[in-house]
């Protein structure tokens, strides 16, 4: 695909081609168009968002600078005013339950949304600013200068007849599998251990039933993140509310999933049957089942972000943040896409879209939350997916809570330290390991 000759003369079709109209691509196209550059936004789905799926919450603060008062028009399902972290064993649950009414008022915090709605809305903003959106078009490879395999990237080949698009710069926002970043040689290795697969059911329930089950009113909603619900496979679960549907899903580590004997939907059925989850999700029709791979390992799996004539943003650059208490991605994609768009616009203006001319992209990201958070939290995905957090901690936590609140009269109440010691011993947690991981967690989160 890469050895395609390009015209020896003539201006490129566009200043920039952005591949993928997800949040990263649309933010990049928006910033390029606003800077007055000719930008083409190519999407393989019939509409933006058609191929996209996630674990539920968009954090919109990054939109404040791009689209002031975005909350007045963004296609949101519910504003998250209640979030829970639930730690499960087979029969028990311990939950941290947080409510904040301020998150339900402008400027808001997190929102649930259907990605086909949200992504199409954001792409339309890029179109309104002057970007050319081309849907139903799959990019099949990169065009290289003079057709040399290691030549500068000078456009993309698509599956349309005469579908080559030449450009001064390509912004690859083509998602977690990013064939473009791989073709450009920006991913040194691809290790399945860095990836998880997410599966999700969207279940229809009447709006008042959802309000009642989740204890919210109006356009307020709930996001629940769950640990200890994936059997022998490292991962996690989630439940969140849309207006008249509830989403329930799992995120599963690929190597262990593929070595096990439980299929994703079987593990999901077990979560749905858990006594703490069943009352929330039971009874409705499954309106849509979906699946998507997630770049779980964050900073440690990121590719080179800049090549000769190419930038990478969003899941294509592994920018999804899977850091335990923080599970974010759309915001990182928007932040990185906007930075890529600004960098590309400037490079076009200065007529230098070489790797050197585009190098400012990385600096922009380093000085923003995108790489600052990822760098600081680089250990978090490993901690969360480790045996202690996945298998032992949920048992110890629920064991301690059970002993703490089970009244044992006529025996006197045991001391907390006695309970903790007993539970750690029962579940094979060594003090040394607990302290070691505790220190790692303190360094990461503290």
């Amino acid at each position, binding site marked *: 695909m890469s050895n395609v000759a390009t015209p020896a003369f003539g201006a490129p079709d566009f200043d920039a081609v952005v591949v993928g109209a997800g949040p990263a691509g649309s933010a990049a196209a928006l910033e390029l168009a606003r800077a007055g550059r000719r930008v083409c936004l190519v999407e393989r789905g019939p509409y933006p968002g058609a*191929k996209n799926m996630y674990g539920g919450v968009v954090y919109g603060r990054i939109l404040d600078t791009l689209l002031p008062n975005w909350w007045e028009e963004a296609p949101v399902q519910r504003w998250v005013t209640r979030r829970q972290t639930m730690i499960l064993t087979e029969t028990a649950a311990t939950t941290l339950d947080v409510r904040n009414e301020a998150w339900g008022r402008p400027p808001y915090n997190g929102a649930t949304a259907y990605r086909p709605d949200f992504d199409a809305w954001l792409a339309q903003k890029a179109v309104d600013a002057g970007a050319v959106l081309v849907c139903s078009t799959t990019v099949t490879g990169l065009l290289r200068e003079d057709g040399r395999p290691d030549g500068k990237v000078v456009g993309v080949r698509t599956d349309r007849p005469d579908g080559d698009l030449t450009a001064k710069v390509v912004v690859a926002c083509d998602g977690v599998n990013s064939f473009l970043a791989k073709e450009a040689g920006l991913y040194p290795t691809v290790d399945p251990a860095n990836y998880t697969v997410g599966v999700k059911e969207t279940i229809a329930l009447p709006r008042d039933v959802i309000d009642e089950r989740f204890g919210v009113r109006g356009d307020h909603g709930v996001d629940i993140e769950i640990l200890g619900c994936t059997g022998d496979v490292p991962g996690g679960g989630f439940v969140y509310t849309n207006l008249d549907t509830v989403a329930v899903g799992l995120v599963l580590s690929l*190597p262990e999933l593929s070595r096990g004997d439980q299929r994703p939907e079987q593990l999901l059925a077990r979560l749905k049957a858990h006594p703490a989850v069943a009352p929330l999700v039971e009874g409705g029709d499954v309106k849509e089942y979906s699946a998507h791979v997630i770049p779980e390992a964050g900073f440690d799996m990121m590719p080179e972000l800049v090549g000769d004539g190419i930038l990478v943003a969003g899941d294509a650059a592994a920018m999804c943040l899977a850091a335990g208490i923080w599970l974010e991605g759309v915001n990182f994609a928007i932040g990185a896409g906007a930075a890529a768009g600004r960098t590309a616009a400037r490079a076009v203006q200065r007529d230098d879209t070489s790797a050197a001319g585009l190098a400012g992209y990385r600096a922009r990201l380093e000085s923003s939350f995108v790489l600052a958070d990822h760098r600081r939290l680089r250990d978090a995905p490993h901690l969360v997916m480790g045996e202690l957090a996945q298998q032992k901690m949920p048992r110890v936590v629920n064991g301690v809570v059970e002993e703490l609140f089970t009244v044992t009269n006529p025996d006197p109440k045991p001391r907390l330290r006695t309970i903790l010691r007993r539970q750690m011993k029962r579940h094979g947690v060594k003090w040394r390991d607990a302290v070691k991981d505790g220190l790692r967690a303190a360094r990461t989160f503290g």
Partner: protein
Amino acid sequence: MAEPTHYPELSFESRMGSVEFRVAEQAHIVVDDRICADCSTRGCVVACPANLFVPTAAGGILFNYEQCFECGTCYLVCNEEGAISWSYPEGGHGVVFHRS
């Protein structure tokens, strides 16, 4: 985890029936079944969320691309070089999500 009370709660066919697929004429994934015959791990069979990889009595793998989520799980877990050739379907085709 407790055994579900009424498992399976949803047949796999109904589950996949909830998803829109605009099936392309040409397969976007090609499986070289001769390579699969020598594979002992077969991670794709259990991990593919759409259950598109089915072992055959002859020791190979039967594969269907039509209800593919285009997630990439299969090629990521595949241990056998060259067994799965993976690309995206023709533009406008393949899975189309609405409430994801």
